[in-house]
């Protein structure tokens, strides 16, 4: 009985396939815009526009009726980085139609979007956007009867690329500075001019050591940042008690605190508080706050870790009584590689990436970071997590 039913269903599918016109499927594909707007245009063998899809209309500003029958290369001019127009004959489309290029990836051999030389298409309103396109000839009886072009606006990709390039450029500059330093220090030691002063030799070795520490931190933080940027985040959602969270986090920083005789405090009035989030990320952020608090306190000071439950949010805080952040520099604190002037003197081997990384992590768990600080009085850093309404309340 079962087998017959299966066969019946399979036959039904086959009948459906034959009956559903391929035309309709193509129409649907052609017209849909999709999330990342995809423009499609069909031209005849002379390069005149036959059909366009909605994506084309959105990206270029031309309605189908305005564009129909016009030469595509005229409707959408193509420019290079420097706003030089690509002559019609040199356009990929023209070359495809004339048979000069048979199949084509319109934007240079190999590679994904990022590696291609940037070109721009110009809209109806004369503004332009960076694009990537694929053009294929339509063949009938081995003759070229037209072509189809598909293109996307890659403004977002270009922007991301630019941010990454800027970061890498800044990062390599940050590494070069200490490296030039050790080069000259080591060279000076090797030259023998310090042979009469053991004191100076010790000072040089100390400097080289510190610079090396700085570079270790930098490489670690730079790689961390790059990884965070490119990760397709799979954020866990676990239920963790504030008590366990605090225990785990305090263990991470206990050694550093002990070295400076910092007194770590955390009030115990939150035993019953539960948080629903990615515990590793949360611990990373709080760990970062605590490290900073310890690093920028003087010997013997207190650092207080706390959590408060509010009506709609849970607020974690780390308070220190150390060097604080000068008011004029506060707005730059989340900038990559930025270090406050007093921080650089107090702790030479900081990287300036810690808060930026914490901010990226906070965004991943839908949190927000704020701080208050006064120079020479101390700082408080807050991590604010929204409570979720409904069943999964955070407590």
């Amino acid at each position, binding site marked *: 009985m079962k087998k017959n039913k299966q066969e019946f269903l399979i036959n039904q599918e086959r009948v459906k396939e034959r009956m559903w016109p391929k035309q309709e499927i193509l129409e649907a594909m052609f017209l849909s815009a999709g999330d990342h707007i995809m423009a499609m245009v069909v031209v005849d063998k002379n390069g005149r526009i036959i059909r366009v899809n909605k994506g084309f209309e959105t990206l270029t500003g031309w309605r189908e009726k305005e564009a129909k029958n016009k030469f595509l290369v005229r409707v959408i001019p193509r420019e290079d980085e420097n706003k030089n127009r690509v002559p019609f004959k040199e356009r990929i489309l023209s070359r495809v139609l004339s048979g000069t290029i048979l199949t084509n990836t319109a934007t240079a051999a190999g590679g994904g979007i990022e590696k291609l030389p940037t070109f721009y298409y110009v809209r109806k309103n004369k503004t332009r956007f960076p694009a990537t396109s694929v053009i294929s000839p339509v063949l009938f009886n081995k003759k070229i009867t037209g072509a189809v072009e598909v293109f996307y606006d890659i403004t977002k990709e270009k922007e991301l690329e630019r941010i990454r390039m800027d970061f890498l*450029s800044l990062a*390599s*500059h940050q590494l*070069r*500075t200490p*490296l*030039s*330093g050790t*080069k*000259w*220090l080591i*060279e*000076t030691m090797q*030259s023998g*001019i*310090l042979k009469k002063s053991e004191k*100076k030799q010790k*000072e*040089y070795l100390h*400097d080289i050591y510190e*610079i090396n520490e700085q570079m270790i931190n930098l490489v670690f933080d730079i790689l961390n940042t790059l990884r965070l940027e490119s990760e397709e985040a799979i954020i866990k959602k676990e239920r963790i008690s504030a008590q366990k969270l605090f225990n785990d986090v305090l263990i991470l920083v206990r050694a550093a605190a002990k070295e400076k005789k910092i007194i770590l405090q955390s009030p115990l009035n939150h035993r019953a508080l539960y948080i629903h989030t990615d515990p590793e990320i949360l611990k990373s952020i709080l760990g970062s706050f605590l490290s900073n608090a310890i690093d920028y306190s003087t010997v013997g000071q207190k650092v207080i870790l706390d959590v408060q439950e509010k009506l709609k949010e849970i607020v974690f805080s780390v308070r220190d009584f150390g060097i604080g952040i000068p008011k004029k520099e506060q707005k730059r604190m989340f900038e990559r590689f930025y270090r406050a*002037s007093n921080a650089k003197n107090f702790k030479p081997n900081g990287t300036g990436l810690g808060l930026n990384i914490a901010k990226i992590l906070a965004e991943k768990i839908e949190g927000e970071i704020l701080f208050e600080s006064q120079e020479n009085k101390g700082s408080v850093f807050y991590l604010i997590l929204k409570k979720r309404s409904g069943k999964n309340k955070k407590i």
Partner: protein
Amino acid sequence: MNNILIIEDEDFLIRALKDNLLAEGCFVDVAKNGEEAIERMKGKEPDLILLDILMPKSDGFHVLKEIKSHTKWKSVPVIILSNLGEEMVIKQALRAGANDYFIKSQHPIHEVIKKVKEYLYGK
């Protein structure tokens, strides 16, 4: 009795430059920013200046321009120290009157010292 003024904010670079110059028998003054530099120059005019053009908290260009537009100081040779990737900066500095430049990571320190001696004693 050659007097060199180093305008630099990184301690380890100051250390290396100073010790090498002292070993050559020069007197060395240090200023960690533009303001300090001008103060030092008012006190004692140096025979040569080593200037880090991109000190983060200080405007190396501002100092350079002030020195090169000052009637007495403009004849003092100024050698710029910079980092890789700052070609534009170096060009600007040369246009602003700097006499020479060194990209720190590309030259051993003894070459810098050699150039200093060339400017002090002639080639």
